[in-house]
């Protein structure tokens, strides 16, 4: 992988919240798979727009409204280049990845799926890529099939062709939010197409951490959220192949998504407005544009390399220190995993672990990670999860390892 030298200490310094101390201790933020922190560049872009140029988009003729529209559409172009979409028409702004998947299920799904049709998912999906399909099971009596997992938390593709036999949809995560597993996206898209199914990639854990090329994937749809990639909450992206988006019925109805409205009906606007009803999150989209610039400037290949190094360090540090007392789920090989470490520690409940780590300002997620079926497979109701990003370094992994000692002290294990 070609990487250039990045000043990671300077990156860390770009995130003002990381300067915060509580009880005179620095903040060790290890919950980025949940939601990421924001750099000055994003905060400033949003604040500047609200202070100096806030205006509606696409509907007023004065100069400031034109500037706002340019900023909004400029952000769309940035996202298009960032994921190598063919056209800006393929980039739809939604509320988040969850809404993007619901949009696909409710529009493409309702138009194309009927009783007995098969949708294939995997055992490592989070609820956002399960429940929208369950809703179609209830409404349309479609059938769900599941790709199982191997012992080390990768997809077990040994029966892929029979699972895909007769399927209309394969919808899967590019990176597990619990196991960190990176899935073979290209291979899965090709297998879906060979079976006559469309391929939907839930990329909300992948896009913030890796070079993304939706055309190279050969996917039909991809979804991700701004808030996990140093952008603001409240905006997400649906990418779809233009001919599919063209053929789909609209999702939400209202202003901006129409070409014409009469007393007896309406016609939809061209892409991408067709799927953006009402006033969109203008400030947040502009913030997402700044986030994309910020990440692209560091370089996604550099980010991936940084996180691989950090994951390797964290895995070996925790294992060396705690041996069999710590069980870290997911693949050991950092080539196929992102910087997400879900773990069990000495039988202490994750909620208690998180509470004790919080005493040292170490922020981790404790819970089911919105992936209850996967948790059941792991034989746990919950895990503690530490997830790393561009502003984390080895001292954060060390702080996690040190703070775990406190859990042992209290529980006497």
């Amino acid at each position, binding site marked *: 992988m070609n990487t250039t030298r990045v000043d990671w200490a300077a990156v860390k310094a770009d995130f003002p919240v990381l300067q915060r101390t509580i009880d005179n201790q620095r903040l060790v933020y290890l919950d980025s798979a949940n939601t990421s922190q924001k750099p000055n560049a994003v905060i400033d872009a949003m604040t500047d727009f609200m202070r100096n140029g806030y205006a509606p988009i696409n509907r007023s003729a004065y100069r400031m409204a034109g500037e706002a529209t340019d900023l909004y559409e400029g952000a769309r172009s940035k996202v298009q280049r960032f994921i190598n979409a063919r056209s800006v028409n393929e980039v739809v702004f939604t509320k988040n990845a969850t809404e993007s998947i619901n949009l696909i299920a409710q529009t493409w799904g309702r138009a194309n799926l009927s009783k007995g049709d098969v949708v294939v998912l995997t055992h490592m999906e989070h609820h956002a890529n399960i429940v929208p399909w369950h809703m179609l099971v209830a409404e349309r009596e479609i059938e769900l099939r599941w790709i199982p997992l191997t012992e080390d938390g990768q997809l077990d593709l040994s029966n892929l062709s029979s699972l895909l036999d007769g399927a209309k949809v394969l919808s899967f995560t590019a990176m597990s939010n619990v196991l960190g597993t990176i899935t073979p996206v290209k291979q899965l898209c090709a297998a879906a197409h060979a079976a006559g199914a469309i391929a939907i990639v839930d990329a909300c854990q992948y896009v913030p951490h890796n070079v993304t090329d939706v055309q190279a994937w050969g996917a039909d749809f991809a979804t991700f959220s701004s808030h996990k990639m140093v952008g603001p909450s409240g905006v997400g992206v649906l990418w779809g192949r233009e001919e599919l988006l063209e053929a789909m019925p609209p999702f939400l109805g209202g202003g901006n998504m129409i070409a014409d409205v009469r007393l007896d009906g309406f016609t939809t606007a061209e892409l991408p407005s067709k799927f953006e009803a009402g006033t969109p999150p203008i400030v947040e989209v502009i913030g997402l544009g700044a986030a994309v610039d910020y990440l692209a400037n560091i370089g996604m290949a550099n980010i991936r390399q940084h996180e691989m190094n950090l994951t390797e360090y964290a895995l070996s540090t925790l294992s060396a220190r705690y041996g069999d007392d710590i069980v870290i789920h997911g693949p050991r090989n950092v080539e196929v995993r992102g910087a997400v470490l879900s773990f069990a520690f000495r039988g202490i409940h*994750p909620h208690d672990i998180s509470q004790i780590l919080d005493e040292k300002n170490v922020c981790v997620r404790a819970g089911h990670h919105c992936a209850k079926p996967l948790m059941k497979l792991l034989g746990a109701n919950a895990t503690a999860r530490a997830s790393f990003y561009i502003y984390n370094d080895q001292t954060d992994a060390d702080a996690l390892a040190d703070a775990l000692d406190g859990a042992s002290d209290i529980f006497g294990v």
Partner: protein
Amino acid sequence: MPGLEDLYREIILDHYRTPRNRGELAPPAVMAEGHNPLCGDEITIYAQVENGVLVDVKVSGQGCSISQSSASMMSQAVKGKSLGEIQALIHRFKVMMSIEEDADDAPVVEVKMGDLEALQGVVKFPVRIKCAILSWNTLLQALENAS
């Protein structure tokens, strides 16, 4: 910031390590399941009510030290009590967790909290109140199922 010693009192850890009244009860005992959607904790309460008295109660499920110890202490406190006494205790516990208040003109009801007093520290950690209250709401549900 309140210290962890306010939360993890020795008696709480004792109930967590050796929970009382674990198990299940067969019908005609009733049951109710409770979930904490935030953290995935699950609890099932079995209640055997005879002539307005909770003659037996069992707890199963899994969860964190606070949810499990609260369930264990609760089971000890309510077993053998009349439904009226249990309602008063549930109210008293919820007042302690600051999720219910006494009306100004409410009659003073003497309720012995016993070991449950140890859970008082939980209120300083608002995120954990839901853990402490899970078994109590599940018991309420079970008692409703019984009537």
